[in-house]
């Protein structure tokens, strides 16, 4: 009756490296359920990542997997999709990976609208390197490099994606575990560049330094800040202060890059 994750987890690879209560494991389960529900074949699915705790995900799952360099996952994924458009290409990674060092690749993949699903596990911190602030760390928050509170304002990843031209943008949280696969499955079915941001938790390097005393407090925080889009539409700006809107935030049908390029090839070859 439960879900058989064993079908997709590589034998002998568990337990994974993530810390107790790290949300990345919850998100990975959601990703597996999503792939299962859309029916992508293992042989024809590539999962690509950059560097970071979140980016270790591909090593555990039984697909054509590629763990690349920091921030470059989307660019490697672009090469795969362009060279073999019949492959399903999914890119995964953290907030630092995706919108700091990889920000340029991210916005340009959005602009091209290439058919890749990009899962960003946003824990608001550089987890792997021990908790330095990331471009999504809230202003004022503590990180190992913001001992007096973070002076930087954060990015809103979803707005960034929409602004850059992504044609599917959704947001969920690691607390709302049952929603993760729904959002990802819809993203995978969408033809174009789809971005799914999952608000995640890093109890080890973020929670510890900030006001979250335990894994559970971090989970409950995700529960408290999330407001589904349908509810948010009925709320005032005042009521929405400090909240994060979840659900499918944006969806649009536009020509997809890799298939448009194939059409160009056919046109050129026809003379």
């Amino acid at each position, binding site marked *: *009756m*439960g*879900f058989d*994750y064993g079908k997709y*987890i590589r034998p002998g690879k*568990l*337990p*994974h490296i*993530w*810390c*107790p*209560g*790290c*949300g*990345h*494991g*919850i998100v990975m*389960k959601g990703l597996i359920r999503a792939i299962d529900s859309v029916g992508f074949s293992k042989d024809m699915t590539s999962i690509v990542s950059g560097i970071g705790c979140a980016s270790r995900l591909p090593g555990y799952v039984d697909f054509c997997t590629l763990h690349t360099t920091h921030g470059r996952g989307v660019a490697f994924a672009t090469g795969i999709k362009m060279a073999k458009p019949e492959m399903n290409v999914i890119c995964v990674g953290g907030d630092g990976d995706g919108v700091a060092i990889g920000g340029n690749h991210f916005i340009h993949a959005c602009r091209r609208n290439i058919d890749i699903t990009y899962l960003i596990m946003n824990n608001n911190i550089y987890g792997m390197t021990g908790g330095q602030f990331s471009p999504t760390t809230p202003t004022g928050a503590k990180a190992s490099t913001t001992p007096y509170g973070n002076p930087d304002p954060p990015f809103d990843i979803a707005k960034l994606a929409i602004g850059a031209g992504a044609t599917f943008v959704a947001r969920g949280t690691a607390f709302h*575990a*049952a929603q993760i696969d729904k959002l990802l499955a819809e993203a995978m079915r969408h033809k174009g560049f789809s971005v799914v941001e999952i608000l995640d938790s890093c109890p080890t390097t973020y929670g510890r330094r900030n006001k979250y005393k*335990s*894994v*559970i407090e971090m*989970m409950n925080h995700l529960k408290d800040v999330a407001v589904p889009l349908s509810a948010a539409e009925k709320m005032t700006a005042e009521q929405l202060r400090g909240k994060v809107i979840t659900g499918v935030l944006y969806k649009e049908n536009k020509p997809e890059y890799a298939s448009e390029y194939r059409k160009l090839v056919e046109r050129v070859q026809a003379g």
Partner: protein
Amino acid sequence: MISSFERHGAMEKKKPVVLVNERYCKGCHICVEFCPTSVFEMRGFTAVVKNPEACIACMQCELRCPDFAVTVSQ
């Protein structure tokens, strides 16, 4: 043919089996906290099934465990 009512009744008799894989459990407390019927408790650094009879098969634990350590089967 059994009616849907009967089938439901038959299912209810099958007790869900909750298992924690000690090799995978990292002791995060998530299952303990989010099980609505307090099936789990912590023993040292691992979760253990304390009240198996209380399980209502809501699947929250299996869904939320970050470490693939909990399974619920019937």
